[in-house]
Structure formats: structure tokens, C-alpha cells
């Protein structure tokens, strides 16, 4: 935090996701930051670029039976099963606190059908606090829903269009990495009106408990996240940034300012921090500080100079 010492120099960290202006490019990844309040005594929530909350469905979901998580090499698998309080309780119980933070609140939504996506969007659009909607079309944990939408360009476009037509806030579509060519899906949702895409969601993985000769997760498969997946995420962000002209938000194994800056070089306008919040609840703030230091040290006019600045060839 060089800019807090002596002669004040404030790095310009602002970025735009369509019409949405962020004070800096660092957001929390859905499902890894609860509803933000959990972290209030550990970092200054008001400094975050944006807060993305745990995925919300139309009706409450109680989630999968345990075990729901298991550590893997430099990563973890989760099969939470999209446990959440449902959109109605979310609006009553969580939105008021989130509204006090002075930070853009982005709500991650999920559904089993286009109708469900439409209904959630309608309800959320009525809340002034909701700055943008992030559509989870890629969650690998729930057998119906999730994967089907994210793996098929036509279905992905349909969900995007449905949400797009239902709300006037920016619509971010969160892409699944479990596809042959992520740029096809990215282009389809861009065409369908997405304001931005975010990627990657978790890779589908599995772990086995040799002692019990059983899957380590009750749900058998789960979503792989953490540093282990960073190379895959960086590759996909790079590919998608070249394929679309809407902003790209990078996600996957980001834990440090260096990680975040690498995603920006690859073409990300902003980043989300997921699993790292568990390891270091102050990760988001440290990444913001680190990006600020870098911008000053490298004498960049703005962090935006980093976006897509990778030199190839």
C-alpha cells in the first residue's frame, strides 16, 4: 500500500464491466464468500471491486449430503449442491446488509429451467441493490440443470436471452470449462446479449477414499477449484478474450496480485477470487493492494493498460 505512505499517489484501478463501474477489478467468486457478512471482521468489504454472492435459486435448496468437500493436490473438490436460502429469503435477509456496503452487489443465479431463471431475475430486478446478475449455467454439481445449459451453445444463449429480456441490469454469463471449445459458448452468449462473460467455473472431478472403497464425496463428482486449475482457466480466458468483444472476467486459482495481473494480461477486465478466500480470508484485499503497488511501480496510467497486454510471438 505504497500510496498510503508519504506523498500520496493513488493508482487508477477502475475498470468497467459494460455500464457497471468498479473501483478495482477484484470481485469475490460466487459460493466462496458466503453473503459477505461472514468476512466483515477480517477485511474491509467496502474496498472490494464487487461482491458476488453464493448462487441463488428460486426455491431454497438444502444441498447435498456430506461429505461435500475434499482437498486435492493444490485444489479442492466441492459438491455443495447449490445450497441456498432461495431468492425470497435472500432478498429479505441478505440484501439489506449488502446494501450498506457501498460496493456493487452481483447476484449469481441458477435454475433448472428458463422459467426459473426468469422468475429469479424478475424478483432480483426489483431490488435496487442488485448491480448485476451473474448467470451460473455451468455448475457441475446438480444433475439436471447446470451442465446441460453450459455445455450447449443454443441452451446457453437461451438462458442468456431470457435473463437479458427480463432485467435492465448488466448480465454476466459464467461459463463452464467442461466443454470442447469454450469460445463457441462465449460467442453464443455474447450474441444473446450478455454484458460480459466470467470464467471458469469448476472443472468436474472426483476423488476416491481407498480405505472405504467409496467416492470421497457423497455426490460422487464435484467441482475442482484452486491453484491446480489456474493454467486451464488462464488458457480459456485467453481464448475467450480473443473470441468476443464483451468484457471477460477471469476466475480460477487466483490467490495473489500476480495471479490477477496474469489474467488481465490474458485479456480479463476483472477477476474473481474463489478458493483463496478460504485459505486467506484477506486475499481479496491483499490482491487489490498488490495490484495497486504494481500499477505504481510500473508507472501505469491505469490498471486498464494491463488488459490483454500479453505479448505473443
Amino acid at each position, binding site marked *: 500500500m505504497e500510496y498510503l505512505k508519504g506523498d500520496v499517489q493513488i493508482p487508477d484501478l477502475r475498470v468497467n464491466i459494460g455500464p457497471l463501474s468498479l473501483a478495482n477489478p477484484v470481485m469475490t467468486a460466487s459460493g466462496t464468500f458466503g453473503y459477505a457478512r461472514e468476512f466483515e471482521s477480517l477485511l474491509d468489504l467496502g474496498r472490494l471491486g464487487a461482491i458476488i454472492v453464493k448462487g441463488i435459486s428460486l426455491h431454497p435448496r438444502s444441498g447435498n449430503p456430506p461429505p461435500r468437500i*475434499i482437498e486435492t493436490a493444490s485444489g479442492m473438490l466441492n459438491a455443495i449442491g447449490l445450497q441456498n436460502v432461495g431468492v425470497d429469503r435472500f432478498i429479505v435477509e441478505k440484501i439489506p446488509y449488502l446494501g450498506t456496503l457501498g460496493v456493487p452487489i452481483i447476484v449469481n443465479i441458477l435454475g433448472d429451467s428458463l422459467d426459473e431463471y426468469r422468475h429469479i431475475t424478475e424478483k432480483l430486478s426489483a431490488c435496487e441493490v442488485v448491480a448485476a446478475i451473474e448467470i451460473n449455467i455451468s455448475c457441475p454439481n446438480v444433475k439436471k440443470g447446470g451442465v446441460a445449459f453450459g455445455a450447449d451453445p443454443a441452451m446457453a444463449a437461451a438462458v442468456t436471452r431470457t435473463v437479458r429480456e427480463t432485467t435492465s441490469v448488466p448480465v454476466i454469463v459464467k461459463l463452464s470449462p467442461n466443454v470442447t471449445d469454450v469460445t463457441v459458448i462465449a460467442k453464443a452468449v455474447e450474441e444473446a446479449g450478455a454484458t460480459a462473460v466470467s470464467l471458469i467455473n469448476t472443472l468436474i472431478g472426483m476423488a476416491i477414499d481407498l480405505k472405504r472403497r467409496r467416492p470421497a464425496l457423497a455426490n460422487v463428482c464435484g467441482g475442482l477449484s484452486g491453484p491446480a486449475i489456474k493454467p486451464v482457466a488462464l488458457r480459456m480466458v485467453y481464448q475467450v478474450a480473443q473470441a468476443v468483444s464483451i468484457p471477460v472476467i477471469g476466475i480460477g486459482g487466483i490467490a495473489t496480485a500476480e495471479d490477477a495481473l496474469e489474467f488481465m494480461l490474458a485479456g480479463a477486465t476483472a477477476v474473481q477470487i474463489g478458493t483463496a478466500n478460504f485459505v486467506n480470508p484477506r486475499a481479496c484485499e491483499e490482491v487489490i493492494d498488490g495490484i495497486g503497488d504494481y500499477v505504481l511501480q510500473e508507472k501505469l496510467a491505469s490498471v486498464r493498460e494491463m488488459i490483454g497486454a500479453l505479448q505473443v510471438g
Partner: protein
Amino acid sequence: MTQYQEKAAVIRIERLSGDNVRLTFDCPDIAAAASPGQFVMIRVGTGNDPLLRRPFSIHQTDEDGHLQVYFKVVGRGTGMLAAVREGAEVSILGPLGRGFQVADSPACLVGGGLGMAPLLFLARKLSQLKRDRSRDTIILGGRTSSEVEPLVKDFEEFGMTVVATTDDGSYGQRGFVTAAFSSLSLPSPCTVYCCGPEPMLAGMSVLCRTRGYSCQVSVESVMACGMGACLGCSKPNRDGGYVHVCVDGPVFDAEEMAWNI
């Protein structure tokens, strides 16, 4: 509740027996805020593997800002923690979770194996309250002497009756803590505070229900965040739903839980 992430220096390493280690940290913020039954998440190592923090009950704190954990080496994380050097700094997150609800009634503390860890803090707290301690009992059980004996003296300091059991009879009474508990005549009402393996907790839960004692149990679960953010640490409850060990617990009223034994 305020939580802290502290860089805590290791100031003392005690190998209480083969695999059981007690570490003392200089960790003033967490120590000052902690109450018995709460836990901390400790970062082991500095690389990405192992990635996640490991949860440990708070074993003891003191007024000088020290915090202790008492643990068994069962895998890589605990192995690395046991190999830490004096003076090394370790990142500790806490205090986390809901601890024991200290009641006025006579207390019976029941610890099985590493389940003894949080009970020392609880015993100290109980001993500091203005209440009659003469009718309080502590039952400490383990598989063998080395799991029980090293801690008995620490527990005896508080002037409560201490009963020790071992599965193999190598120290104290032979048998499980549940058997020792059954054979005691405890005052009624009485609040029973338990920590240990699930079968023991399930057993204690039934015994207490039969006798009309209120029973608090400290349970375990795999954890990623320890603070309610990941929803990974779910356990089934009596209603067919889930509780989250890290925020709803780790201490629960035994009647809340659905034992999966």
C-alpha cells in the same frame, strides 16, 4: 463476533506422547476473544499443497496472549504442524464457531481421545466461575495410557474429580468413557459436555437422554473455510436438514444431531 487472522509465533512445542503434540502460540487477539469449545483454522506449510487450513479446538488460552492446541498426527497437515520449529510463524484464524454453553448446574466433562483438547479450556472456565466445583466430574478416555496419562495432571489442577479410562486398561479403568459415565452417580440436574469420536458422542447422547441430563457435544467435519462461507461442513440434523459445524457448532445440543452410526 470478531475474528482475527494472526501471524502467531510458536513459543513452545510439547510432544506429550508418540503422536500427540501440544503447541503454544503467541496469539493475543484470538486468545483474548476465545471461549471454550471454539476452534481455530491453522495454515500448515506455505505452498499450495496442502492447500486448506486445518481446524483445531482451542485447548487453552492464558492472560498473556498464549493459545494452545493439542493434536494428533494423523496425516500430512498435522505432520507438518508437528514438525514446526520454535519461533516459526504460523497463520491462525479464529476464534471460530459456537463453543460450549456454560450452565450453572454441576458439570460432567467427557473427553475421548483428542476430544480432551477443548475440555481443558472448558474446565478452566468452569473453575473460574463462582460455583460449587466439588460435584463436577471429568472423564478422560483413550485407547491406551499414552493417550490419556499426559493430560491428567493438567485436568486435576481444577479440583474436580478426574476419572481416567483406557480401552486396554493400561491406565485408569479399563473400558470406554461411556461405561465409566454409566457407572458414576452424578448429581441431577447435570450438564454433560462431550467431545470425542462420533460413536462416543452418539452413545453419550443416548445415556444423557435416558437420565434427563442436558448434553452438549462438540463434533467434527471436513472444513474448507471454518467461517460459514463454503457450506462444506454440513452434518444432518434431526429435522432432515443440515447444520454447519463451523458456524452452528462445533458444539451442539446432542438432541439436535442425527447420528449416522
